[in-house]
């Protein structure tokens, strides 16, 4: 019984962590929160459905295709939309929410009804200590690990990764060192879109695809990022996993009625008590 909850909670936690990483990447670079992240996640699921149905792509090529397309879309949207919203955080937040609403309703016009997602990760189930879970859960865990490891290696050992970190640390100084700041910001948005969209494909076979798929996931992923520390990659991953597990356990041992409440209670408590999150650091304001 516990194993069932742990597997389910871990799977959901990985999704929160990945979508939360999108928040973190943008926040680290721009000090701004992109609240369209949930809708990007949803759009990724639709993109995965389209790729699977129209081209019959197997799991790995499909994930790669969705990541590449979403990366490009993220860069384009940064150039066309987000760049015009950098004037203030308030403008950016409202603009991002507006973009999310537009994305969601755009999909709703074309797809008013939920659609089933093909079992691209296999139709079988695994048995573990009395728990029965779909193969999809294993894919979620493995792909999350691969993505996190890839991000770590990229940020730590590659030129582009160091450039992104430099811009995140201080854009002006990075620019004086020859880093193309605008391109780095565009790449950051592209990366955040790609990760969220891949998370959308990972969760597709577990749920139905519908325009509202990203509403709650987006908010909970934000909550997870705040829990772990929105400017910390490791913190966001830990926050996501913790939130997924806590939700599963609370729903079972307390009540399913309070499952959503838990995520937002954590958000409120963290913002009041430790706004920088578990592993986040306080960034001093420059004057």
């Amino acid at each position, binding site marked *: *019984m516990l194993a*069932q*909850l742990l597997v*389910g909670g871990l799977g*959901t936690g990985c999704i929160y962590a990945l979508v939360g990483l999108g928040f973190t990447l943008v926040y680290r670079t721009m000090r701004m929160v992109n609240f369209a992240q949930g809708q990007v996640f949803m759009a990724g699921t639709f993109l995965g459905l389209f790729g699977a149905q129209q081209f019959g792509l197997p799991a790995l090529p499909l994930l790669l295709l969705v990541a590449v397309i979403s990366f490009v879309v993220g860069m384009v949207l940064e150039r066309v939309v987000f760049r015009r919203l950098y004037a203030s955080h308030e403008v950016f937040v409202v603009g991002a929410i507006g973009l999310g609403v537009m994305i969601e309703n755009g999909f*709703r016009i074309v797809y*008013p*009804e*939920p659609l*089933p997602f093909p079992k691209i990760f296999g139709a079988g*189930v695994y048995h573990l200590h009395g728990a*029965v*879970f*779909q193969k999809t859960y294993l894919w979620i865990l493995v792909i999350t690990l691969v993505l996190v490891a890839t991000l770590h290696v990229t940020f730590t050992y590659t030129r582009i990764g160091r450039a992104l970190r430099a811009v995140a640390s201080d854009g002006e100084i990075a620019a004086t060192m020859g880093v193309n700041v605008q391109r780095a910001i565009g790449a950051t948005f592209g990366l955040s879109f790609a990760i969220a969209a891949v998370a959308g494909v990972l969760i597709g076979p*577990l*749920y*139905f695809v*519908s*325009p*509202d*798929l990203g*509403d*709650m996931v987006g908010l909970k992923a934000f909550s997870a990022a705040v829990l772990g520390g929105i400017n910390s990659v490791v913190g966001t991953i830990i926050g996501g996993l913790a939130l997924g597990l806590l939700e*599963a356990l609370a*729903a*079972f041992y307390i009540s*399913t*009625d309070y*499952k*959503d409440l838990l995520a937002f209670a954590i958000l409120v408590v963290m913002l009041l008590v430790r706004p920088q999150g578990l592993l986040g650091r306080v960034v001093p304001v420059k004057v």
Partner: protein
Amino acid sequence: MTHRLALLAGALTLLATMLTAGTASAQDIKLGTVIPLSGAGASYGASIQQGLDMALHEINAAGGINGRKIVLDVADDASDPAQSVIALQRLVNDNDDLVIGGWGSSQVLANMAVAERAGMPYIVVGASNPRITTSGNKWTFRTLTNDNGHAARLAQVVDLLHFKKIAIIYDTNDYGVGLRDIFLATLTRQGMKPVDVESYQTSDKDFTAQLTHIAAAEPEALMVFGTLPAAAAIMNQARDQGIEARFMGAAGVSNEAVMKLAPQASQHLIATAYFHVDEDATARDWAARYEQQFAQANQAPRPSQAAPAYEALKLIAAPCLAQAATDKDKLRLCLKDWHGKLFGLPPGDAHFDHTNQLIAPLVVEEVVGTEFKLLPGANQ
């Protein structure tokens, strides 16, 4: 310059023609409908609109009602109770002559007060909570058997199939909670107690916690008191978790979309329903025409959801409109006295009771392959 002005005048004339082409003229009958075309109830709302469209085209093709055409005024409530109030108010403000629609008990319980305040005849074709017709709203009629009827039929099936261990999972909206309470009371009268009762919210996607409880209780039948898509997701996830119980539900799961969303898990799902193609020859004939007419539509035809809307307009409202025209009070009185023929019933058998609740039987069906079939032994 003159040439440009002439072009502009021509374009404006064309635009004006296009804008007025689809609007009602003064003598038309304006039929309003408040339905979900987005949100959780979208698959139901589109079917209701198809049923109304079909009836409307048949009536208009035959010359209308006393020479007056019917035009449809659609208000999408996005499956949301608050928006359904605004949607129905919009139909009232549009000076519609009557409203047929209303899907979801929470939505109808919220918006029916608008119909009463405005004196608008409102025929509900998509909500089954008993309170809709027992709260004394004289302008609201319902053509669907309420949840008392569903609970009684489900309890009969439990008895018929000798199920001893029943679990329930219900949506926490007015539909799910109402059905849970009535079914639990019915079970208690039969001397039974469920092995587990779980709840969920309409927008939930993951049911692992509830299903883990249910799996531990090892039920023979799992009552799913809710609507799609959540109900179909519950069935899929239950099977994935190894739960082998027979799924049962009321009209919320009697929607052909369940076989698309849960093709394997929904097999042998038992549902109480308002319509079945095998009820009688008129039902068969109607379903064949309906499926042919909407075969190429954006949404595949779903007779179980479209039939009550078609019947409400073609068989119930149209005779009253012919008799009372668009005098709303006369229309309401005509509906109260209406006796007529519905699918599966002899002529004159169908009528409304003193609470404006239609008295009509339910059928019990099960999913077999990609169709609903009448459940053997349950429809005598």
